[in-house]
C-alpha cells in the first residue's frame, strides 16, 4: 500500500478522496490521534485490522501481549505514565471478554483508553456465530462510551469521537466494536478530522465564580483547613497549580493512593496518605479540621470509612470536574465544579497568605506517634525476617524517588504506597478503585512504553503476580526493561490479615504456594535472584536496578506481618488503629 498517498488524503484540509479499507482508515486515524504504541492480541474477527497493521509496523508499534487482560492493563499503565490515551486491540468473543477486568479498572480509575475489538460479520450478529459475544452490552456499564461499527464509512467519525470522549472531562475507557465486514469494506476515505465537540456531551462544566469566592472565603476564615486530593490533580495536569494553592495558604494536604506523587513525598505540606491503611494524622484530623477541601477525589469508602462519622464538624469544599461526584457520598458546603487546572488558580488568587503553623504542628505531632508505633518498626525491624517496608526503604535510597512504582494489589500495595518516595508526578501506578490483582506486571510493561526513559519497578505479591505471570513472555519478546520486585510472604496477605483480625485466624485458602519465580523468569530469559537475608538486600536491589534490561528480584518477607495503621471496616477514620 502506498501510505504516503494516504497520508496526504488524511489531512482534513484536502478534498482528495482515497479508497481505503475500514482497517486502513482505522490505522490512519490512530496515527493522526498521535498513537505510537498499541497493545493487543490478534484473532479471527480482527484479522483484517492486523493485516493492515502489517504495512504500518514502522509507524505503529504493536506489542503482542500474552493475554488480553495483560494487554489492557499495559494500555492502562501506558496511559497513566504518559498522560496519553492507551490503545488496545482484541478479537471478538473471548478476546473481548478478557478485556473486561481492565475496562472496569480503567472506568473506576478514570484512565483514558480506546479499546478496539473485532466482531463477527454484521450479517451474523445475533446468530451465536463463532466467537460472537455482545461486547457492546457487556461493556456498557464499565465504559464511558461504546459503539458498534458495521459500516466502514463510520470509522473515521466514530474513532475521532472515541478519542475525544476518552481524553476529555473525566477521562475513561471507550470501546469500539468493529464487525469484520466493516474492516474489509473499501470506501471513500475523505480524511480524518479530530473531534472537539459533541452536542450531547459536556466534558467540562463552566466554572462559577461565585462558588470560587465562597470557597476562598471559607478557606480564609478557617483555623484548621485540610486539603485532601486525588488523581484529578494529575489527570488535570494541575500539579503546579495545586502546589501554588496549598503553599499560598499553608494548607496541609493528604492524598488518596491515586493522587500520590502529584506533589513530592518530602513536600513540607504533604501530610501523607488517606484511608484504610493511610497515615494516622490525616485520618484522625479529618474529624478535627474545620474546612475540608477535596480536590479531584471522589470520597471512596476506603478513604472515608464510616460516612455518618466522616468530617461532620467540617464545612466541605469539593473541586471536581464531574458534577455527579458532588454530594454523591459526602454532602458538600460549596461545590467548585470544573477542571482544577482552571479552578485552582482562581481560588489561589483569592486566598490570604498564611502558614497555619500550629495546625500543621498537630499533624507532625500525630506523625511522630505513628513513626514510633508503626513506621519505625516497619522500616527498621529488629527481627530476623525482612519486612516489606524495609525493602521499600532501601529501594527509595537507591532510586532517589525518581522511579515509577507500579504495584499489584494487596499488602505490598499498601506498604509501597505508604513508604515509596516520589519526586515526580505520574510515578505511582496502581489499581485503586477496582483493586485488580494481576494489574502490576502488565501495567508496568505499559508504563515503561509510556515513559521509556524512566526506571519502572513493578512491586508484586506472590499471589497477584501469578495471575498475570504470562506477561513475562511479552517482556521476553519485546524487551521492556521492567524491574519486577516480588515481596513473597507465602500468603494472600491482605485476606490473611483480615482473617487474623476479624475471623479468629481461620486461615481459609490464603496459603498460596508459588513456583520458583526465578526459574520461571529464567525460562522467559529474564535474569533474577531470590534473597531471604537482610544482608543481601541492598546489593540485590542495586543489581536489579543496575541491570541493563528486565530483572526479577524475589525478597522473602515476614509471613504474618500486618499492614498498620488500619481503619477497620465500618469504623470512622478517627477510630484508626495503630496496632
Amino acid at each position, binding site marked *: 500500500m502506498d501510505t504516503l498517498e494516504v497520508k496526504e488524503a488524511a489531512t482534513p484540509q484536502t478534498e482528495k478522496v482515497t479508497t481505503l479499507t475500514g482497517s486502513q482508515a482505522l490505522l490512519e486515524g490512530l496515527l493522526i490521534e498521535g498513537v505510537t504504541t498499541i497493545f493487543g492480541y490478534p484473532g479471527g474477527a480482527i484479522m483484517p485490522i492486523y493485516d493492515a497493521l502489517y504495512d504500518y509496523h514502522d509507524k505503529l508499534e504493536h506489542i503482542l501481549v500474552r493475554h488480553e487482560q495483560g494487554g489492557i492493563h499495559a494500555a492502562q499503565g501506558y496511559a497513566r505514565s504518559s498522560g496519553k490515551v492507551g490503545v488496545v486491540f482484541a478479537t471478538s468473543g473471548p478476546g473481548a471478554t478478557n478485556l473486561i477486568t481492565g475496562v472496569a479498572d480503567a472506568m473506576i480509575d478514570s484512565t483514558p483508553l480506546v479499546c478496539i475489538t473485532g466482531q463477527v460479520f454484521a450479517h451474523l450478529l445475533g446468530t451465536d456465530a463463532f466467537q460472537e459475544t455482545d461486547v457492546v452490552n457487556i461493556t456498557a456499564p464499565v465504559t464511558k462510551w461504546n459503539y458498534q461499527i458495521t459500516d466502514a464509512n463510520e470509522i473515521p467519525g466514530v474513532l475521532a469521537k472515541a478519542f475525544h470522549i476518552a481524553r476529555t472531562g473525566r477521562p475513561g475507557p471507550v470501546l469500539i466494536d468493529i464487525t469484520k465486514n466493516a474492516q474489509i469494506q473499501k470506501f471513500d476515505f475523505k480524511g480524518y478530522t479530530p473531534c472537539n465537540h459533541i452536542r450531547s456531551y459536556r466534558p467540562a*462544566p463552566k466554572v462559577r465564580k461565585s462558588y470560587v469566592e465562597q470557597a476562598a472565603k471559607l478557606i480564609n476564615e478557617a483555623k484548621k483547613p485540610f486539603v485532601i486530593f486525588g488523581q484529578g490533580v494529575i489527570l488535570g495536569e494541575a500539579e503546579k497549580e495545586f502546589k501554588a494553592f496549598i503553599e499560598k495558604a499553608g494548607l496541609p494536604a493528604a492524598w488518596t493512593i491515586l493522587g500520590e506523587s502529584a506533589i513530592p513525598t518530602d513536600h513540607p505540606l504533604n501530610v501523607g496518605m488517606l484511608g484504610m491503611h493511610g497515615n494516622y494524622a490525616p485520618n484522625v484530623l479529618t474529624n478535627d479540621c474545620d474546612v475540608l477541601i477535596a480536590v479531584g477525589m471522589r470520597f471512596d469508602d476506603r478513604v472515608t470509612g464510616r460516612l455518618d462519622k466522616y468530617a461532620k464538624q467540617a464545612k466541605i469544599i469539593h473541586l471536581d470536574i464531574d458534577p*455527579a461526584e458532588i454530594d*454523591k457520598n459526602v454532602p458538600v458546603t460549596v461545590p467548585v465544579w470544573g477542571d482544577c487546572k482552571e479552578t485552582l488558580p482562581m481560588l489561589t488568587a483569592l486566598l490570604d497568605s498564611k502558614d497555619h503553623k500550629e495546625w500543621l504542628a498537630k499533624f507532625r505531632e500525630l506523625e511522630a506517634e505513628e513513626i514510633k508505633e508503626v513506621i519505625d518498626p516497619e522500616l527498621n525491624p529488629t527481627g530476623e525476617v525482612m519486612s516489606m517496608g524495609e525493602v521499600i526503604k532501601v529501594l527509595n535510597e537507591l532510586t532517589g524517588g525518581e522511579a515509577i512504582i507500579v504495584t499489584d494489589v494487596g499488602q505490598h500495595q499498601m506498604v509501597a504506597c505508604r513508604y515509596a518516595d516520589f519526586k515526580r508526578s505520574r510515578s505511582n501506578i496502581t489499581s485503586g478503585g477496582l483493586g485488580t490483582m494481576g494489574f502490576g506486571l502488565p501495567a508496568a510493561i505499559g508504563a515503561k512504553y509510556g515513559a521509556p526513559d524512566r526506571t519502572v519497578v513493578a512491586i508484586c505479591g506472590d499471589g497477584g503476580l501469578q495471575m498475570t505471570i504470562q506477561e513475562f513472555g511479552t517482556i521476553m519478546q519485546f524487551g521492556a526493561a521492567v524491574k519486577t520486585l516480588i515481596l513473597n510472604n507465602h500468603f494472600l496477605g491482605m485476606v490473611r490479615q483480615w482473617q487474623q483480625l476479624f475471623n479468629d485466624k481461620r486461615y481459609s485458602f490464603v496459603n498460596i504456594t508459588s513456583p520458583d519465580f526465578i526459574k520461571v523468569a529464567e525460562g522467559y530469559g529474564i535474569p533474577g535472584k531470590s534473597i531471604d537475608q537482610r544482608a543481601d538486600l541492598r546489593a540485590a536491589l542495586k543489581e536489579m536496578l543496575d541491570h541493563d534490561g528486565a530483572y526479577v528480584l524475589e525478597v522473602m518477607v515476614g509471613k504474618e506481618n500486618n499492614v498498620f495503621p488500619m481503619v477497620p471496616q465500618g469504623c470512622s477514620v478517627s477510630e484508626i488503629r495503630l496496632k
Partner: protein
Amino acid sequence: MKNQASIKYAPAAESSSAPHQKKEFTISVFTENQIGLLSRIAIMFSRRKINVESLNVSPTEIEGISRFTIVISEVEEVVSKLNRQIEKQVEVLKSYYNVNEDIVWQELAMYKVPTSVISEKAKVERLLREYGAQAVAIRSDYTVFETVGHREETDGLLNALAPYGLIEFVRSARVAIIKDSEGFHAKLKEFEQHEPSQEVIENEFLDKRDEVFTM
C-alpha cells in the same frame, strides 16, 4: 425550572420534610436517537436495584432527539443522584426528575370486549360513556375501546368491564409534560454551541445564596 437536578447545600435530612420516604418520580430524559442507549439507561436502574414502573421512549418535536419518560418509586436523594449519573451518559442531553405535582401525565389503555356484550347490555354502554371511552375498532365479534387517564381511571374501567367478558387489555407507559418547561429547542441550541454549558446542573439556590450559605 423547579425540582431539577440540584445541589443541596444542607444535608438532605434537614432540607425537606420527608426525604427518606419513597415517592413516585417521573424522570424525563432527552437523548440522541442512538442504538444501545436504552440499554445503557436501563442498567443504571437495575444496577441500583430500582424497579422501573413505567418506561416510554419516543421521538420528540425535534428531529433526532428522543425522550425517555421513566417512572420509579424512590427517595428523592437517590433519584437526584441517579439523575446526575444519567446526565453523564455521553448521548444524554438533559435529564429532569419531577414529582407528580410538577407534571401533567397520562396513560393510554385499550380494552377489547365482545361486541355482543355492548349491544345487548345497556349497563356496559353506560360504563363506557362514564369512563369517557372511545371506540377505535368495531367488528362484528369484538370492539376495541380506548381511554386516557391516570392509573386509577384506566384501572376503574378495567375492573368495571371484568364481569362482562373482557377479552384483552393493554396499557401504555406514562407520558408526561413538565408544567414549568419552556420546551427543548432553546436548550438544544445551547448544547450545539462549542462553549461549555451554564446549565450542567441547574442550581435552585444559585440566586439565593444568602439564604442557604452561612459561614
